């Protein structure tokens, strides 16, 4: 079994202006998927990132600089990450495609975790 990280992107304003009922419907899809994948032993954990803009730390000319992330200008930002287990990349991709994130948002990145 290999581990994969799903990096879930969404538009910064994706959930703004939704009614509570609409928002709940989206949440239910996500929770349902996580519960199902946990039952099947595929889902290993995940974290939601705060919706507010983060910080970027960069090294410029040997100095460390800290900036607010240019959040609003980005079409999509990383909203959270999840860890799943799968036989190989293809299987992981199939699992990723079944994720309700792909119904309610536009993209996610998928990366194999380097197990040594």
């Amino acid at each position, binding site marked *: 079994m290999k581990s994969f990280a799903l990096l879930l992107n969404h538009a910064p304003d994706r959930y703004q202006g939704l009614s*509570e009922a609409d928002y709940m419907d989206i*949440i239910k899809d*996500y*929770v*349902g998927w*996580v519960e*199902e994948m946990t039952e099947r032993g595929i*889902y290993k*954990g995940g*974290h939601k990132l705060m919706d507010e803009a983060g910080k970027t730390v960069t090294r410029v000319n040997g100095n460390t600089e800290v900036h607010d992330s240019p959040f609003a200008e980005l079409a999509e930002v990383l909203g959270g990450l999840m860890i799943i287990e799968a036989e190989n990349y293809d299987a992981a991709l199939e699992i990723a495609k079944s994720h309700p994130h792909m119904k309610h948002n536009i993209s996610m990145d998928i990366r194999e975790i380097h197990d040594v």
Partner: protein
Amino acid sequence: MTAFDPNRLDQLARRERGRLIANLVHRLGPHRLELAEDMVQEAVLAAISSWPYSGMPDKPAAWLARVAQNKAIDRLRREGREGLFEEDNDPREQTGVADNISDPRLSDPELKLIFLCCHPVLSEQDRLMLTLKIVSGFTASEIASIFLISESAAAQRLARAKRKLRLDEQQLLSGISRFEVKARLETVLKVIYLMFSAGYAPRFGDRLILKDVAFEALRLAEVIVADEETTTPEAHALVALLAFQSSRFNARMDEDGKLLLLKEQNRKLWDHKLTEKALCHMPLSQNGHALSRYHIEASIAAVHALAPTWKQTDWAAICALYNALEQVADSPVVQISYSVAEAFGGEPKAGLKRLKDIPEVEGYTPYYLAHAEIYRQLNNYMEAENMLEKARGCDASMVTADFLMGLTYS
């Protein structure tokens, strides 16, 4: 594998909100109702933000309680008021009233919250809306759909009601005395009765929400009778009434959602567990001297529930009960139901006379339907059709809370 039930989240958020707020208000004091409400809302938001990643915790209710409490502590600490959130810092101790015999005030957090929402400074409809919102956890948009008003109107009304409550801060702080519990209980029962009516009355609206409202009213009535500080024979009568009515919930509509009259209902679909519950509360309602409208209405419901078929309904008993009801709580609606009972009992002429004696209840479908039924029995088909036509012209959406005030069932 237990399949994920999406409704679990909705129900959890709704059911738990009231309990979480009640516990926080219990510890923070009733003047911090809004803080408690805000913190519980934040806990729910935290849940819907993190559960999609973590999955639902094993004990979601405990998770929400912990997060809401931590957020409240954080908030008060930031305001430099953490002292107000000590386990032993019960606001009632600040009043200096000796309570050496037994505490004269309500101890159950949920009961306290119900009585707070039914405060006498509020109008009847405000009490009902606030109870639905704070005790029962319905959202402003659900409340808007229950009362057929816009969401912003519902939100404004709720905010205004809470402002009114705050004006009475000193009094809120001292808690509710045993005397006030007695005095306010009648109001609380009325609010529960109206809540049930709002959910049970056949009308437009989200049927699932309306059903939740009706069953929530039954639950609250049971909370009242379960505590020795608030239980009364009258409250038992209300539980019996609501349980009898609820037992017919699933039989009231056919498969297409068309409303079925009592006469047309399949009695096998009645929920006998609820009928039994009602029957258990009937004797408990007779432990006193007072005869309330709830006693009489529950008795009418009992006669229907115990009739094996429509034909075997004891109309003489029902008419006698309506006769008692008109002396306790008369209204045009009571008279309309009474007239129909008389007609089914073989006295359509008496029923018609009764209808003629009340002023026309314009726009009220049952008023015209009662006429139509009685004219049909008197073989006056032209008038019957005329009245049916008027009934069809009624706007079902005009059933609002104000209008439900006098509603009774038959």
